[in-house]
Structures are given as structure tokens and as C-alpha cells.
């Protein structure tokens, strides 16, 4: 199943690593260097975006603010947060999203994305 995935990540090497991993799976990938760019892409992309993968800490607009905005505009979008923080740290900050801790191997990313895309969203 080919899906459209939007990546918001300010680290260029991580952004392209994630992109390459998911494109190799056959997905179409849109990328953004921060939350602000991701919102611009989402607002202009008039097709379905199946999944947002976002970093938490980013300049201009962070991942949590991006998720809040995007969920208003695309209620069905699936979310995956990637961060150097632990899931406990994120939970303490009340961020309850599917989560992948950096650094991660391509196999872990592929598996998590497959699982999320096979689900009904949140």
C-alpha cells in the first residue's frame, strides 16, 4: 500500500534518513524542516496525508504545536513522534503519541510505520 507521509524534522541527516527508509518501502514522502514548513506543505497538499512523523524540538514551531494544528485540519491523520527523549519524559509532559526514540534503526522505523498505517488512526 503506497501512503503519503509527511516528515517534520530540523536535522537534515535524520530527515533524509527517514525519508530514504520510507521511500524504499514505496511510500511518497513530503518533508519539512520545521513545524511551520510542515503546516505549509499540509495546507497546500490537497490529497490525503496518511501519517505525520515529527520531531518534538524544532525551530519556529515545535512538533507538539504542529500536531495540535494538523489534527484540527486533518482529523484522521496518524501521528508518530520521534525524539531523543524517553517515552516516560514525553508522558510526563502529557504528550501521549506513538513514539520512536532516536536514534533508531531503519527496521524499527519500518515496523512502527507499518503498524501505524495498518491501524485506524487515533
Amino acid at each position, binding site marked *: 500500500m503506497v501512503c503519503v507521509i509527511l516528515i517534520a524534522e530540523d536535522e*537534515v541527516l535524520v530527515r533524509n534518513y527517514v*525519508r530514504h527508509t520510507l*521511500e524504499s518501502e514505496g511510500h*511518497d514522502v513530503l518533508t519539512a524542516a520545521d513545524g511551520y*514548513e510542515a503546516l505549509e*506543505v499540509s495546507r*497546500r*497538499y490537497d490529497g490525503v496525508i496518511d501519517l505525520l512523523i515529527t520531531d518534538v524540538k524544532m525551530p519556529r514551531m515545535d512538533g507538539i504545536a504542529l500536531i495540535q494544528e494538523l489534527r484540527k485540519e486533518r482529523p484522521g491523520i496518524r501521528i508518530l513522534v520521534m525524539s531523543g527523549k524517553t517515552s516516560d519524559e514525553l508522558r510526563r509532559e502529557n504528550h501521549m503519541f506513538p513514539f520512536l526514540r532516536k536514534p533508531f534503526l531503519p527496521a524499527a522505523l519500518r515496523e512502527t510505520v507499518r503498524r501505524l498505517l495498518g491501524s485506524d488512526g487515533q
Partner: protein
Amino acid sequence: MEQDITIVVAEDRVLVRNLIGLVLHREGYHVLSAADCDEARELCLNHPGELKLLITRKDLPDCKGSDLAKTVLRSRPEIRAIVLSASVAAELQKVVHQKSFAAATQDSSLPLVLRNGISRALSEPDFPSEPLEI
């Protein structure tokens, strides 16, 4: 398919960057994208494999595309470089704003001059070793 060919796109305008990236990906190329010169330099410095082509805009906010291309060429003499002139950059901007963005990424709507430049850079043995402005 051209998955073994890697192309770096350095473009600050996020929609144009994604347009070029998605169209080239659908044509089978492996695309790395950078939002500015610093990112492009970092990508080119760290990518473990061969890079065939750098596509950059002439006037990026943090440096000139031709200077970026020359810097990259010093560390990767094998790479070929295309610098998008203001008119091609404007044409790309028009594509992403005049029609549905999703549709634009589907119908291979890159300007002909860019398509020809990519085709030349990837196929001509005597392609200029200096950055080529189109």
C-alpha cells in the same frame, strides 16, 4: 528505475523542494533534500555513497547557489551541478501555486529546461565540470 542515482536538491522554498523531490522520486531517483546551503553542505559531506547531481537555486537566502556548487565540487569532483536561474525558479514557484499541489507532484510538471538539464547532467560524458546555470 534509477534508484542507484542520488540527486541532492538545495531549495529553500518548501513546496518547490517537495515538488522536485517527489517527481524525481517517482521517476526512480534517490533524492536528498536540503532547505539551505548549510544543510546541503552537511548532506554532501556526510552521504556515504556517490552523489550524481546537485540541483540548487541561484539565490538561496544564506548563500549563492553557484558558491554552494563550487564548494561541493571541491570535495566531490564527480558530482554535476545545475544552478536554477531566477526565471526557472519563478516557473517552479508558478507550478506549485497555480494548480493543485498534489496533482502537480503526480503529473511530472517540472519545467522542460530543468528536465533537459537533469537529462544532460546524468547522461552527457562532456557535461561541464563547472556548475551549469539554466
